[in-house]
């Protein structure tokens, strides 16, 4: 096997993004075509290699191809473009304008993605290697300083010092709760029972988030290194990575990484000559949101139904097989090697008073630059959505941003300048959760959004306790009623009182936080509920029973776009004359309003 460095000026590296988003856009074929084109080709001045990497975070522009060390980024690359890239850029050294990054707002072209607003304002810690390395090559990880933190910990620090370092860094769990990671480790180390276990929570049940997936796929060794460092600190003998079974690529890359780590002596007996013996196993999850909850996850690893148990005793004392167990989220683990390498002071210099370091967000929905972003804690929502994210798609109006996953909340425009950290989001009636940021515009119905989340949670409730099982379905009934135009004013009070009961009486956090989407939309978007109930109207044009579209003849210029897009042939009109919608044919799919560039389609 040929070994080559990631950033060697004597060599050229072509990095093809093969994260899930780019693969779906055809990057697999781009990579294969490129490998074919490079094979046996001696026309290049320097040795040239192709590498398949994890997600670069800008899936919207994918498939992405980066040429290093020239620092050129090409977007939307298809297999057909490869020969041109080879001829023009690799051989002649010229840029291909049509493949360059173009800022959607300023229309400016960029040579490298590093110079764009999307990247400039980010700060990569957990995602530091993703997109830069081939996740299947341990060599790549090593060249970027991989496993140095482990060496440092084992050779120069006592277990207590490692725990102190993590504690001083102020690292808080990235899986949602925000519990101080160092405290958890300390509590586990303080027990007198052996064996002890560490677990990586890669269940990622949030139905609109993919940061953990991206880390597991794009940089599996960083998670392993975090786990091994913890094993050293707390004296654990075995680690488990619980990952969703659908995450094929993550499972594959993790499996390779574990094998390689064993070969290199980072896993197994007497790691790096120390007394630490530790190994890691992958457990594939069965796809149930509640299994992300730590006690349910432990049940699931043990081969049971994934039901949570009452946490009077924490898993740090009595966890997997009733033994002391540390369980942390994927992103939490990815931060650990950085803390040990750079030191807790350096790590804690980023972020806010109460939340140190960075957070990865999956920035999705009606935002221009959809993708994964990592920013220092304390960055405002406005910076994330409008500067990094480039604002709202199609020039529409921002309405809300949903954070915290199904049990989070919706934050309105007036709070956009909120600096994001664990505490500010909770105060705003939402939560950090695992880091989903779903941007909503005036075409998103807030009642329907609440119904969507409650419907999701109703399906995911494990059914063990009544307030959650029955309470959530009741919320769902009421919300469905409102969306169908059958709501009554009293329903709003009922929603509120029911929500309070569930919050207090449910057994686990799934149930206790389930009313959040309802309460936060009621708090900030009560008007929309009232429109549905009093005027039988869905202002966003989403709830079918309450929606009628019409074309404003003043604004319509007869371009015919909506007519061509309509799947029901409901739009009629002559070229350059105002068009009309035949309501008897219309299926309220919204294609016309989504596609009219002149805002001529309106909701009645």
């Amino acid at each position, binding site marked *: 096997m040929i070994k080559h460095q990631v950033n060697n000026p004597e060599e050229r590296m072509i990095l093809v993004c093969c994260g899930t*988003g780019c693969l779906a856009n055809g990057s697999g074929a781009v990579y294969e075509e490129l490998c074919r084109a490079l094979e046996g080709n001696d026309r290049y001045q320097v040795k040239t290699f192709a590498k398949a990497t994890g997600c670069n975070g800008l899936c919207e522009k994918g498939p992405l191809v980066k040429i290093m060390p020239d620092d050129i980024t090409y977007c939307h690359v298809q297999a057909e473009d490869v020969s041109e890239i080879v001829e023009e850029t690799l051989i002649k050294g010229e840029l291909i304008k049509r493949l360059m990054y173009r800022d959607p707002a300023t229309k400016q072209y960029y040579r490298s993605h590093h110079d764009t607003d999307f990247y400039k304002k980010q700060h990569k810690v957990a995602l530091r290697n993703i997109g830069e390395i081939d996740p299947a090559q341990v060599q790549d990880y090593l060249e970027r300083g991989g496993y140095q933190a482990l060496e440092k910990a084992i050779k120069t620090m006592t277990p207590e010092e490692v725990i102190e370092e993590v504690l001083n860094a102020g690292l808080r769990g990235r899986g949602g709760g925000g519990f101080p990671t160092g405290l958890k480790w300390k509590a586990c180390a303080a027990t007198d029972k052996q064996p002890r276990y560490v677990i990586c929570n890669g269940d990622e049940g949030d139905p609109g988030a993919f940061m953990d997936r991206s880390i597991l796929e794009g940089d599996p060794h960083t998670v392993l290194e975090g786990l091994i460092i913890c094993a050293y600190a707390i004296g654990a003998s075995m680690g488990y990575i619980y990952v969703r079974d659908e995450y094929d690529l993550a499972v594959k890359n993790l499996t390779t990484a574990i094998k390689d780590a064993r070969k290199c002596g980072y896993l197994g007996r007497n790691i790096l000559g120390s007394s630490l013996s530790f190994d890691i196993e992958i457990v594939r999850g069965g796809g149930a949101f509640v299994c992300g909850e730590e006690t349910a996850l432990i049940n699931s690893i043990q081969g049971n*139904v994934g039901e949570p148990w009452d946490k009077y005793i924490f898993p740090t004392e009595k966890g997997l097989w009733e033994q002391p167990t540390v369980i942390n989220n994927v992103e939490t683990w990815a931060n650990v090697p950085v803390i040990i390498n750079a030191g807790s002071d350096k790590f804690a210099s980023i972020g806010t008073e109460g939340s140190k370091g960075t957070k990865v967000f999956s920035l999705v929905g009606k935002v221009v630059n959809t993708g994964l972003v990592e920013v220092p804690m304390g960055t405002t929502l406005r910076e994330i959505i409008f500067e990094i994210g480039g604002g709202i798609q199609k020039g529409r109006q921002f309405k809300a941003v949903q954070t915290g996953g199904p049990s989070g909340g919706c934050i309105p425009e007036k709070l956009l300048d909120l600096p994001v950290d664990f505490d500010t989001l909770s105060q705003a009636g939402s939560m950090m959760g695992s880091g989903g940021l779903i941007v909503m515009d005036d075409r998103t119905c807030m009642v329907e959004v609440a119904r969507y989340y409650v419907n999701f949670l109703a399906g995911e409730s494990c059914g063990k306790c009544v307030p959650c099982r029955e309470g959530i379905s009741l919320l769902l009934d009421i919300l469905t009623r409102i969306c169908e135009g059958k709501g009554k004013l009293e329903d709003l009070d009922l929603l509120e009182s029911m929500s309070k009961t569930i919050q207090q009486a449910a057994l686990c956090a799934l149930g206790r936080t389930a009313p959040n989407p309802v309460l936060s939309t009621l708090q900030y978007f009560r008007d929309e509920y009232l429109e549905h109930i009093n005027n039988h109207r869905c202002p966003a044009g989403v709830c079918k029973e309450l929606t009628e579209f019409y074309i404003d003849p003043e604004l319509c210029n007869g371009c015919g776009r909506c007519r061509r897009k309509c799947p029901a042939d409901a739009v009629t009109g002559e070229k350059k004359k105002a068009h009309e919608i035949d309501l008897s044919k219309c299926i309220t799919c919204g294609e016309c309003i989504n596609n009219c560039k002149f805002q001529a389609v309106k909701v009645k």
Partner: protein
Amino acid sequence: MAVNSQQAADRQAIEKIVNSYPPERRFTLAIMQDLQKHFNYLPKEALQMTAVHVKAPLSAVFSMATFYKAFSLVPKGRVILKVCDGTACHIKGSNVMIDEIYKTLGIKPGETTPDGEFSLETVNCLGACALAPVLVANEKVYAKITPAVLRDVIKKYQGVEQ
């Protein structure tokens, strides 16, 4: 005859999967996942053999089969349509797509057409939110689908001979 040899082959496949794991309770989920992948559902016999292998009551294995989303107790269609109904896809109209499938094929999420051709499932975020709304038809990903695209995809698979 043909039926019997099919049964024997199935039985062999089950045995092979079940025996590839140590007889411990904690491997129940992994065994069931492999079985689901092989058969596209969990045949009753497979559940029985799993229970015997991991020394768990059949009821425990059965309750796992109904608890975890990944499992199905009935056979799935030849073409499995998975509409992503993660949040990003949802607010970009995945429900319109689900309605559209119901209109063309008469199936709702979790159902299979009577001729065994199509099954419809909804899944949570596929990790390709930039391409929302996303449809996966037999592992092939279709990005930014519209009702019109959806009809074409269905037509394409209807046309494909077995």
